[in-house]
C-alpha cells in the first residue's frame, strides 16, 4: 500500500489511460492528481504494477465503470473484490462509479445503461451502494449519467433520485458537468436548474469530458449529443462548469478523454483551462459579494 498521505486537491486532474502510462512513469508530469478506471488495470498486471509506482507520487482517484450498482441481478462480488484489492494497493483519494447498470444475469454489456427513477430502483440502488461501500471499506461517489433515453415509468427526477440516494446511504455525488449539459440537451431539461438542485455539501468531485454532435434523424434540423469523451470540452460546458464552481465552491475536477486519445499535453492544457475557469468564477463571486 502507498503512504496514504495524499490529500484531495481542488485543482484539475486528468484521466490516466493506458496509452499515456509509460510517459507518465518516465516523465512524472506536473499534474495534481490522476483518475483511473480499475477495469483497465485489473486484467493487466504490468500496468497495475506501473500504477502502483505512480500512486507513490500522485494522488489517485479510482473511477469504476463495471461495478454496475443498478443491476437488478445484483453486484458482481468477484469484481468488487478485485477492485478492493487494487484500492487497498493504491489507497485512492476518491472512489466513484455511475448511476447506471451494465450487467445482466452474467452478461456484461460494456455500457452505462439508463434506469427508471422509481421507488423500486431507489431501494435496490441504496442496498447496492451500501454493499459497495462496505465491500470497498470507504465512501463511494455516484456520478450522474449521460442520457439519450429515459423510462416513462419514472416517478422522480434524476436530481430527486440522487438526493434520496445520498440521504439513504451517505454516499456522495460526482457531478459530471458535461453529462448534465448533454442530458439537458438530449432530454429537454435546464442544465442550470439541475446544477442548482443538487445538494451542495454532497458534491465530492466534478467531471468534464468532450462529446460529439450528431444529427437527430427523427427530428430534422435538430441534433443530439453523444458522450464520446473524444473531444475538447465545449464552450457551453465551460460556462456551466463556471456556474457549478460558483455554486459548489472549489472541488476536485477531472478531464476525461477515453477515445481518440490525444497527446498527454492536450489533457494538461484542458486541465489548466479548467483551473483558470474555476479561479475566474470564484474571483467573480468574491467581487460580487464584496460589491453587494
Amino acid at each position: 500500500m502507498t503512504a496514504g498521505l495524499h490529500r484531495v486537491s481542488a485543482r484539475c486532474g486528468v484521466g490516466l489511460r493506458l496509452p499515456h502510462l509509460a510517459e507518465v512513469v518516465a516523465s512524472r508530469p506536473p499534474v495534481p492528481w490522476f483518475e483511473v478506471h480499475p477495469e483497465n488495470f485489473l486484467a493487466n498486471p504490468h500496468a497495475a504494477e506501473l500504477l502502483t509506482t505512480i500512486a507513490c507520487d500522485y494522488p489517485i482517484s479510482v473511477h469504476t465503470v463495471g461495478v454496475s450498482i443498478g443491476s437488478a441481478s445484483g453486484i458482481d462480488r468477484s469484481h468488487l473484490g478485485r477492485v478492493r484489492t487494487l484500492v487497498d494497493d493504491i489507497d485512492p483519494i476518491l472512489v466513484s462509479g455511475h448511476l447506471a447498470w451494465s450487467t445482466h444475469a452474467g452478461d456484461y454489456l460494456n455500457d452505462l445503461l439508463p434506469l427508471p427513477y422509481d421507488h423500486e430502483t431507489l431501494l435496490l440502488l441504496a442496498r447496492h451502494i451500501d454493499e459497495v461501500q462496505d465491500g470497498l471499506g470507504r465512501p463511494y461517489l455516484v456520478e450522474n449519467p449521460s442520457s439519450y433515453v429515459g423510462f416513462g415509468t419514472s416517478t422522480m427526477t434524476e436530481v430527486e433520485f440522487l438526493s434520496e440516494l445520498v440521504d439513504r446511504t451517505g454516499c456522495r455525488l460526482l457531478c459530471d458537468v458535461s453529462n448534465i449539459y448533454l442530458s439537458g440537451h438530449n432530454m429537454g431539461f435546464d442544465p442550470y436548474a439541475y446544477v442548482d438542485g443538487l445538494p451542495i455539501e454532497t458534491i465530492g468531485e466534478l467531471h468534464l469530458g468532450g462529446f460529439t454532435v450528431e444529427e437527430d434523424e427523427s427530428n430534422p434540423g435538430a441534433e443530439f449529443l453523444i458522450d464520446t469523451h473524444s473531444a475538447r470540452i465545449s464552450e457551453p460546458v465551460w460556462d456551466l462548469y463556471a456556474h457549478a464552481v460558483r455554486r459548489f465552491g472549489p472541488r476536485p475536477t477531472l478531464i476525461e478523454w477515453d477515445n481518440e486519445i490525444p497527446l498527454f499535453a492536450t489533457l494538461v492544457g484542458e486541465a489548466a483551462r479548467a483551473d483558470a475557469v474555476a479561479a475566474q468564477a470564484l474571483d467573480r463571486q468574491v467581487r460580487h459579494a464584496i460589491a453587494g
Partner: protein
Amino acid sequence: MPSLAEAQTRLRAAIVEDDAAGLLPLLVGGHEPAKRLAIHQRHYETSLVTALLGKFPAAVWLVGAPFATEAAREFVHRHPPTAPCIAEYGRKFPDLLASRPGAERLPYLRWFGELEWHLGHVAVAIDRPSLTMDALAALEAAALPDVSLVLQPGLRYLAAPWPVDDLIKVYLSEAAPDHYVFEPAEVQLEIRGARGEFRIDRLEPATFVFREALAAGHTIGSAAEEALKSDATFDPGRALAAVLADGLAAAVNLPSQGAGP
C-alpha cells in the same frame, strides 16, 4: 408496469439480440426513442468489435479487416462479455473466426488466433521470483512426485498442427514476403512473457507434455507419467531441473496432509 429486472431483460434483448419490441413502449426521449436507443445498440457493438480487433491485430492482418470485422460483429452478439474487464474478453474469438465461411482456405487460423491471444496475455504479466533448485532440494525426495509447481503467470503452452509461430513472426517482422510457403507441421510451443516482452520457443513433444501438465496443476509425478507415455526415453529428473533452470517455476504446492497414496 414491468419490474426493474424485466425492464433490464428487455434492454439486454434490445442491445444484444436487436429485439426492442418489448422495450420501446417503456422509453421516452426525443421524437423517436428507437433512434436514441440505437445509440446504446451501436455503442455495444462498436466498442466490443473495436476491442476484439485491437486484441487480434495479427489475425486481422491475416484475414483482412472486412472479414475480421464481420466475424467480430457476430461474436459480440453471440457471446457477450461475462466480466467488466474487456481485456479478458475474446478467448473464443479464434474459434468463431475459423468457423466462418471463407476461413477454410486458412486451416491454421484457429491456432494462429489462439497463439495471438496467449501473446497478448503473457506480455502484460509480471514475473515472480523463480523457485530455486535449493528450495526444491529441501523437500524430501520421496515426497517430490506428489508436489505440484506454481509456474510463472506469463507462461502458456500451445500445440498446433501448423507452424503458426513462424507465421506470427512474419507478421511481427512487418515485412511480409511476396511469396510464402506454409506447410502443415506439428509444433509444441512454449509462450513466455512479462512486462511488455515475450518469446516463443518450440519444445520436444515429451518436454511439452511435461511442462503443459505442470502448468495445468498436475503433480510432478503425474506430469512425468504423461511425458513418459509420449516418449519412453523421457528423463523426468533432467526435465525438472530444466524447468527450474529456465526460471519457469515460482513456487511449490505441497500435498495436503494425509492426501498421499
